[in-house]
């Protein structure tokens, strides 16, 4: 088993986020997570990415329980798990070459990684992965000079560069236009099957999920509502999953600006 949850629960700040999740994915299997926003899809993925530690239950990733490992082994396990985020977590002024190279930090020695920052010379593999997301010409550009969709594809190129055994993606195409979203999901599925990686993707769009994934997992209110092969997902099942959902506007706090006045006198 590549990923296995045994009655896993997650509580954050006293509230139940996920309750009694049992789920397993075989090596090389591909599945999509769907469900209304706030259902716990992201938390489920972050549990699988070892960002969160489960409150109850057992978790097994690529043959190990991450929370029984020593820090060194945990880092080793993490370097085999790749995560694609809703918005690619790239530092604004970093150049694309370094942003992609960062995918392999868990497998590189410290010195060579620091040297690469000053004098990038292992660029062939990076360029290769950028070619896969059609961004080969952006190798030396800075991330803040790219569009939102291009940044997202740089984030995907980073995970391709990492070549993980377990690939997780949290709404990877929410910011992309429909055609690009289609291409991107297809690319993820193809890359995963080429390298025999397990792929678990959360998606807003039920159509995309049904079009590309053989297995669909419906999540709502922190619980798994259904876990079915694509053929058995009827329109009735889907509308029950989303019944009564209201749209919510996410509020983002403004970033504080540092004052320059302190510099004088």
């Amino acid at each position, binding site marked *: 088993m590549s990923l296995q949850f045994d009655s896993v629960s997650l509580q954050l700040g006293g509230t139940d986020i996920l309750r009694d999740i049992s789920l397993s994915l075989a090596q090389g299997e591909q599945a999509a997570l769907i469900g209304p926003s706030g259902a716990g899809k992201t938390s489920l993925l972050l549990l699988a990415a070892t960002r969160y530690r489960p409150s109850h239950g057992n978790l097994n990733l690529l043959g190990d329980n991450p929370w029984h490992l020593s820090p060194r082994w945990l880092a080793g396990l*993490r370097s085999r798990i790749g995560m694609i985020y809703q918005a690619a977590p790239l*530092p604004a002024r970093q150049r694309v070459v*370094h942003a992609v190279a*960062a995918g392999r*930090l868990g497998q590189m020695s410290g010195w060579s990684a620091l040297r690469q920052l000053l004098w990038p010379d292992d660029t062939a593999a990076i360029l290769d992965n950028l070619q896969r997301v059609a961004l080969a010409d952006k190798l030396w550009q800075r991330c803040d000079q790219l569009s939102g969709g291009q940044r997202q594809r740089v984030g995907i190129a980073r995970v391709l560069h990492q070549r993980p055994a377990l690939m997780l993606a949290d709404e990877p195409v929410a910011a992309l236009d429909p055609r690009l979203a289609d291409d991107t999901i297809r690319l993820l599925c193809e890359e995963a099957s080429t390298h025999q990686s397990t792929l678990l993707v959360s998606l807003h769009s039920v159509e995309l999920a049904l079009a590309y994934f053989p297995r669909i997992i419906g999540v709502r209110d922190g619980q798994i509502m259904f876990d079915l092969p694509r053929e058995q997902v009827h329109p009735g099942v889907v509308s029950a999953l989303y019944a009564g959902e209201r749209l919510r506007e996410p509020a983002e706090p403004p970033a504080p600006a*540092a004052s320059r006045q302190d510099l004088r*006198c």
Partner: protein
Amino acid sequence: MLSSHPRDPARWPRLLTLLLCLALLAPSFSLTQFNPATLANPDSWRTMAGFVAGFFPMALQADFLRDVARETITTLASATAGIALAMLLGTPLALATSHALQRHVLGGERPARLTGWLASLLRGLMVILRGIPEIVWALLLVRAVGLGSLPAVLAIGLAYGGMLAKVYAEILESQTPGLASALHLQGASRWQCLLYGLWPQALPELLSYSVYRWECAIRASAVMGFVGAGGVGQLLDTSLKMLNGGEVSTLLLVFLLLVSLSEGISLLSRRALGSVTATRMLPALGLLAVAASVLWLWPGWRDSGFDSSAIVRFARDFFPPASDMLTDIAHGMVETLAMSGLGSVLAFMAGAVLAMPAAGRFGTAAKWLSRLLLNVLRGVPDLLWASIAVLAVGLGPAAGVLALALHTTGVLGRLFAETLENADPEPELALQQAGAGRLLAFAYGQLPTVFSQWLAYTLYRWENNIRSATVLGIVGAGGLGQQLYLALSLFQQHRAASLIIAMLLLSWAVEQLSRYCRQRMG
């Protein structure tokens, strides 16, 4: 299908910049006689430990504490009276030179040539007033009007007057122009335009900047005693010369308390400026403070026997400036630049290292300890660090480098920690998530965001340090200031005049250069 390794197109420019920086930095070590090897030497550490141990226990005798209290009040009063003088001087200068109140800006009339000339002349005067550092003003004025708090007040008034005039004018210019010019087109006079169109919207910003300057003036007035202009600085100077470590540490503590008190008051009042009552209360409180300060200082001034003709006579002695000392000046300037450059680079490194724990990366205890250290480093002005460094490493530019590095580490460390705290943590977390170690996750996830900000802060601070480096010599820490102090002590007024002109030129050139760079960088 593997493609060949493409080369970084920016690699040669990057390498050249790095080499250029190193080439500029390398001679700074020999120019300033600053030897980093002594820092690694256990013997010098032992000497240093003995030196530091000399500062304890703190002096707490009752009569000494009474002196300290009196001089602390004098310091506060000098700063307050000095800022009042600076505002009296700066406001008319600002009104006369601000483009916001000129007829051709308000109403599109043809600019009058005479007033244009006059404004340029006044702007030149402002450059001179603020180009000569306040401590140099104090050094000169002590010789012209005698020891005591009067030269401190005048020095702050003159130097900050020039500064306030410039900033006030800029603040007026940065307001939305439509209001005032609409009034002008209705036939309002320029005074009316000012009072009804510009004043209401600019007032909070003007007050905020004045309060901020008051905070700076306290720091300035606290060190003016080093040239004989009264206040805690004078006590500190005496204690340092008598090598009375216990008194020095008591005074340092008072110093830090004074600085943090003024910072607190300044922060509170600037925060309160949002409300209308505070905007009305603040000037009233300020007037009260000024009146109290003048009352406190008045007996000293009355006894000092101020004589205006003596000033004129003193000023006349400076002309003509000596013309046969170009090599000395060039040497002083290069030494000043080397001191400031090396000090800033050392501060950048130390600040970056201390910013990590200060931003809470190594737990709460480390956070508060490093913040305390940074606050002490920052709270003690560079001139004071220089006077201590001179005792520790001897006279000369090496002490100046050390002093600038110590003070600037405090300033930069705090700013660096703030940028770290404000930066998006997500990229770094994502890399740790993917198995990267802490150092690499920082280097790839956080450093790209903060590094350019750190560089910008350091360059900005370097500009300040060039100005500071010109005056550190007053306490014996090298550069142009040391030559000036020497010339004045030997009554070589002509040489002193040339050195002051050199300082002015340096400060003016740095200001122009940094403005040019900032415009280029956008």
